[in-house]
């Protein structure tokens, strides 16, 4: 089966050790995690993991089931790139000299719609949000000016669907609570 990049989103209770529980499900099946972002979700007390990994459909289905099987995981979903709006942030640190000596950097910044976050006597920091290819492309363009540091965040994603599956799920589960 064809391997493609999947975005896996996982909603969990806020307990310690969940990151480990989730990542070992990938490692055991020899799947490399390409990127991972963890943050509080919009619902208080619920954490959201956004993971990207290259694998095939059959395997991603199994992985999602295995993740959901963990007791403190509320729900896990998998998406293809077509199902989600997604974004990454990249930061580029360039020496002050290179910045000042190379006027073409200005046109590059304009062209890519990058932002300048900081300029001081020693260095400047640029920021670009976009898909991996875009932030990578800017990195390639800036290489000749000697990029001191380059970092890219994990992917964050929002589904295109109009159904909010997590809140539906929570409502459904709460309806089952005998103590309600």
């Amino acid at each position, binding site marked *: 089966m064809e391997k493609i990049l999947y975005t896996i989103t996982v909603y969990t209770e806020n307990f*310690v050790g969940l990151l480990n529980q989730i990542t070992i499900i990938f490692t055991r099946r020899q799947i490399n995690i390409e990127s991972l972002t963890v943050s509080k979700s919009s619902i208080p007390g619920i954490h959201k993991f956004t993971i990207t990994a290259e694998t095939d459909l059959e395997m991603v289905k199994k992985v999602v*089931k295995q993740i959901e099987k963990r*007791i403190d995981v509320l729900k896990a979903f998998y998406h293809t790139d077509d199902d989600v709006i997604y974004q990454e942030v990249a930061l580029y640190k360039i020496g002050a000299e290179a910045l000042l000596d190379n006027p073409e950097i200005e046109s590059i910044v304009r062209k890519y719609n990058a932002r300048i976050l900081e300029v001081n006597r020693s260095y400047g920091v640029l920021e670009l949000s976009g898909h991996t290819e875009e932030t990578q492309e800017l990195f390639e363009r800036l290489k000749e000016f000697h990029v001191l540091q380059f970092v890219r965040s994990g992917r964050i994603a929002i589904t295109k669907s109009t159904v909010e599956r997590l809140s539906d799920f929570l409502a459904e589960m709460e309806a*089952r609570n005998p103590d309600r």
Partner: protein
Amino acid sequence: MEKKIMKGAEGLMCSLIEENVNTIFGYPGGQIITVFDALYSYRDSFQYILTRHEQGAIHAAQGYARVSGDTGVVIVTSGPGATNVITGLADAMLDSTPLVVITGQVGASLLGSDAFQETDVIGVTQPITKWSYQIRKASEIPWAVARAFYIAREGRPGPVVLDITKDAQSEMMEFTYKKCIFIRSYQPYPELQPENIAQAAEMINNAKRPMALVGQGVLLGHAEDELKAFLKKADIPAGSTLLGLSALSSDFSLYKGLLGMHGNLGPNKKTAECDVLIAIGMRFDDRVTGDLKKYAKQAKVIHFDIDTSEIDKNVKTSVAVLGNAKETLPAVTELLQPAQHTAWIQSFEVCEKEEMERVIIPEIMPTAGPITMGEVVNRVSEATNHEAILVTDVGQNQMIAARYFKFSRSRSMITSGGLGTMGFGLPAAIGAALGAPERRVCFFTGDGGIQMTLQELGTIMQYKIPVKIIILNNSFLGMVRQWQELFYRERYSSTPMNNPDFPKIAEAYGIEGRKVTKREELDDAIEEMLKDNKAYLLEVEVEENGMVYPMIPAGTSVDQIILGD
């Protein structure tokens, strides 16, 4: 409810009482001593069993849980105490056994400092438990215990670890208890899906050659009667997995035998001939399926399971029937048309006859040569009227016992299936005897396996546990020897064993015993073993080069099953 102020350790005892725990297996130590101190005050509330090793404690709890259906409880110390239960956790996880294992932990302020006897128990146990949680405050104890029992027991059962820091054990707390009845992130029983139930029924109604595979899910769901009604109504022959054994009694007319690597010829071969394969509470382990690429390709597969993640994990299903077999089986049965599959069922007889002549008769009724494992198992089964609980260790003894012991009651087969843990048997037999005190426990083991947890004879001595121990001594690590003979050009690397005088060891523990080397003595020895309700060790010298057949060599397909020479 009345609130009481007490130490965390006492709160733990009260929580266990709230969960109706009556038997605890364990081993004390520095980081759990406060809990054991509380246990001393509550010693009239529990039957407490001090094993001789923590591995013994957890396997005993597994045996206890498997025969009784209750959750097994283990209390051990931190560090080495905790790491000694790892094998049992992995075993219980693979075999879906409900356990709550409580481990001591260093004080919260010392966590992460490599303190004396500190091990990252949560980190180590997460992959091999259903849930593991560290309690760092006494006030969390009732909540965590309630949650632990709920998780261990509900849905597909499994082991849970509670790691309690030393300060949480001694801190004062207010005790109130509320049983856990709901966890919003955990749905133990998937909702019944009427369409799938209808589809499954239709598929079975249209089947010409249906066949059922019975797994432990039937026992765990207490669905034995529902299974029988299902099989009878549509006249479906059934094979059993190793862990499903005793869900159907051995003489049930539609029961066709054991599946898998050393299972019976019929149910294995017919897996490759049936048109609808109905898996019930089983997980298509590779020891059952052989080569998956060639497994039941001709059949439509219906999979009944409580665990959604088992569906399509190994074998692609046509219809999944999610839920507890106790509910799903009757729901499907109701939609079944009574059917007769006489010719199909009769076709098993050819296999049965062939296996009987070529394998079974020579194994259980040899007339000359050394004693075989099969004849010992067969005679013990007969002498106990097929009513005993069978506990096995791992290896040839396990396979022969599974093949030739017969069952008339449910929950009568305790063995380490998924993990294949040598040394499981003796402590599991102790647990089984405690979990089903009114029943007889016969434990078959090898000369290798018994020595992995031999120290538990001390537990048998101390608590006078009536386990009948039968060592099938072939002076080899027999199952490995069998593979070496078949696949490694008879190079017996690391398998011959010089053994001690086992009955003498038993004697040192005050356990009566006897060694049998001749066929003529066997019946008499078995009779002597079964004369009373006390522990007994019977060592039988069996043939050194015995083989377990039939066999599906690893990686081949079920219909390539071989019968030996």
